[in-house]
């Protein structure tokens, strides 16, 4: 079947099997390998990206379900203004080690801050609780998101 998905603002049209998972579409068909895959059971969140602005686990969505929708991936976080504060926060606070969970964590973090610019530690922990990191023990991820909350995007400051 033919599927057209707007990924990071660009339309990607491909013939795919109906069972193709969105994570595979994004990685293999669109060639955007920043979105990772880490489990068979929707537990790890390495595959987290946005569909129509909602953070979702893309291993749990069929590409066909995203047909005609907008997908945003980690590759879109950096803009002409530079790194997203979430990306900068992960660097500043050592919020990553192997980097495998990081794109998914950052997509959730950006989603959280867009909806709740000043989250409490509890709210941050809750927001990332569907995602697993094996390296950091989460403390610095929480701090990275707090850092990003304290350093809003220039566009947000101006708005």
């Amino acid at each position, binding site marked *: 079947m033919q599927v057209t998905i707007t990924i990071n603002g660009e339309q990607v049209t491909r013939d795919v099997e109906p069972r193709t998972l969105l994570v595979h579409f994004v990685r293999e068909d669109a060639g955007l390998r920043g979105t990772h895959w880490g489990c068979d059971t929707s537990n*790890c969140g390495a595959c987290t990206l946005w569909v129509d602005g909602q953070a979702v686990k893309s291993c749990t969505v069929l590409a066909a379900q995203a047909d005609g929708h907008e997908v945003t991936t980690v590759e879109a976080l950096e803009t002409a203004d530079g790194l997203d504060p979430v990306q900068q926060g992960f660097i500043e606070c050592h919020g990553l*080690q*192997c980097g495998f969970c990081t794109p998914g964590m950052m997509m959730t973090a950006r989603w959280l801050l867009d909806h709740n610019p000043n989250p409490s530690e509890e709210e941050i922990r809750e927001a990332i609780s569907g995602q697993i990191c094996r390296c950091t023990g989460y403390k610095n991820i929480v701090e990275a998101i707090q850092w990003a909350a304290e350093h809003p995007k220039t566009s947000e400051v101006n708005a």
Partner: protein
Amino acid sequence: MTAIEEVPLSPAGNPIGFGNMKRVEDQRFVRGQGNYVDDVNLPGMLHSAILRSPFAHAKINSIDTSAAEALPGVVAVITGKILEGIPRPSLLGDNFAWMPTLSYDTQAVLATDKVRFQGQEVAFVIATSRYIAKDALELIDVDYEPLPPVMDAKKAMDPDAAVIRDDKGQTDNSITDVHGHKSWESGNAIGTAEAIAKAEADPDCVVVTQDVMYPRVHPSPMETCGSVAYLDKVTGQLTLYTTSQAPHAHRTVYAMVAGLPEHKIRVISPDVGGGFGNKVGVYPGYVLSIVGSIVTGKPVKWIEDRNENLVSTSFARDYHMKGTIAATKEGKILAVDVDVLADHGAFNGVAQPTNYPAGFFHIFSGSYDYPNAHCKVTPVYTNKAPGGVAYACSFRITEAVYLIERLVDCLAAELGMDPAELRLKNLLRPEQFPYTSPTGWVYDSGQYEKTMRVALEMAGYDELRREQAEKRARGEYMGIGISFFTEGVGAGPRKDMDILGLGMADGIELRVHPTGKAVLRLSVQSQGQAHETTYAQIVAHELGIPPEDIEVVHGDTDQTPFGLGTYGSRSTPVSGAAAAVVSRKVKDKARIIAAAALECSPDDLEWELGRWFVKGDKERGKTIQDIALLSHGSLELPEGVEGHLEAMTVYNPPNLTYPYGCYICVVDVDPGTGQVKVRRFIAVDDCGTRINPMIVEGQVHGGLADGIGMALMELIAFDEDGNCLGGSFMDYLLPTSMECPDYELGETVTPSPHHPIGAKGVGESATVGSPPAVVNAVIDAISPFGVRHADMPLTPANVWRAIQGRPVRVDMAVE
């Protein structure tokens, strides 16, 4: 080395030496530009999938692959029979169906005669897409004849137990190591037995015996294992992109397995999404991707599912331990005796130094001063996945530390003594270092009491005890758990330590370009440790070159010198030392060149960071960058001095380094539900010099989460039929942000006297040290119910059962 503020900053704002520096690697990772194995796509590449056994033990009568082969898109289906037909001029075994393990055992690449664990590799499908390869698995018809599985290690040596390794002509399930031993002993058997017997007879002494199980767990890095193999038939060059913590060691194994010449094999380990020991072993999947490329002439990619990762790749622990500790009633420890039944699974696939078949478990005497210790470890085969040394265990020091720290708490309970006080009474004293332990380890340095007092202070220990007493009076159950651990990390020296005959020493090369920029080539392999950052800092510290001017190359056997790789916390102790030594060689050569340029004797020169200058005339000097250019220029050099500024070395560590620490965990337990909440975790580590404290602390955080997971949640158990009960993240529970507290870290710094920069390994300290702290805290909380011990994982159900006095068996689903 705590005086970080004294380190000068580079133009980019990085410390020219040790201190907190943002990681070089992060720039690509935060942009989603990491390059992991599954991101590698080669032209014409095929995909693959492995058919795995549903049975733990079964005879294979026949395999029919015809329907799978007929599926459009399937390129080839490979079975064990086909592999058996491929002869090889091999050092180990004579056909492709079997491969050597890192412990001189053999392991089936694809099962031929029997399957020996659930999830074992049975057939390999190569197809044009991963989806088609998976579809084809459904079409393979295997006629299995189930055999009784041996799932309970305690019954593996029963006379009526099924024999698992009949392929080797075995008549029972014992394991014999390369030296012909069926059990592994250390320490003083007679002295220990006598000391314990004497204590038993002495009314002023106590003897406590406790069974302690360290159940089977799994490292589960977020990235599963995988590989992309391409054999170029024209050049004969095999390139393997793979998830490997030890690319050079893997290359040698492939040379043995495939009979390919080593110089025609290039192993590339790109970005690795976490290892924790899971990516040390050589797995059938890697070998099959190579075979697939040989058969098809195309690149073949193999990527594991999470289920495959959990059920078939290197597990950790599975040690049934019985410990006996004798002490005076004043709390002076006299002796410890340990008996271990070690479940190694169906193939002895542990990755550890040859002379240490029980790993470094023999360091179990711990951080305490007593003369008599002895242990005996007896390994057995069972119908479970192979492995055993993984999950940041420092070659089984995890098990050792867990055992001694549980025993000390049991002793404290028996004596009615505070566990902190009991530890302080027995800790090794600074003047005892270097200290030779009763089992022969030479601990390099430590200030144990100081470190423990820092931890007690940070925790507010006395206040916590007061709070606990008040809460108990109200019927609330909080617990405080302490663990004091000592690790030995950084294997070799090479004369004592090898893996498959490869001595554990590591090469390194440093080249300073004409413009003063440098490239450092490492044998060790980062899986998230940030070698590209910290190794540049070591060179910067030694030579004064800004770290941003130093490129660190690793993970490619064609581009790096030989070495044994990264596991057992060995990177900093071995290759970190190598980086300092090779820098000093360059510095020595730079001195000669500077002297030639300044027309003086090298002896007249003095070093300050980044520069040689004439003693007494600070203005006259040459920077390392000047010298780099001079070394490549036309300056006349003294007799016997070659041009250019570069050096290499192979670092053979004189001894292990011995990091240690004191951890304190505070928990609240709901006795009605058995639910445990980790309220606080205080971790004070002493790993000697800290190259990049931010990175050290990050690694400690990760290890603490591991420990909380193992103590409370993680478990690979089996039912009696051989089914793995931890085959997905729905069953194998890993800690999330909700279970982990906001850790409180502290440090003391006692440099290693034999390491060039005084550093010790730290990558596994927290994984080793934290489980006993959590378990001790939970047991402390529920001790009013008369509980002295309960095995991990302390899930709500298990805690509740312990409180109710019901028996718990964690490794087997038996009631």
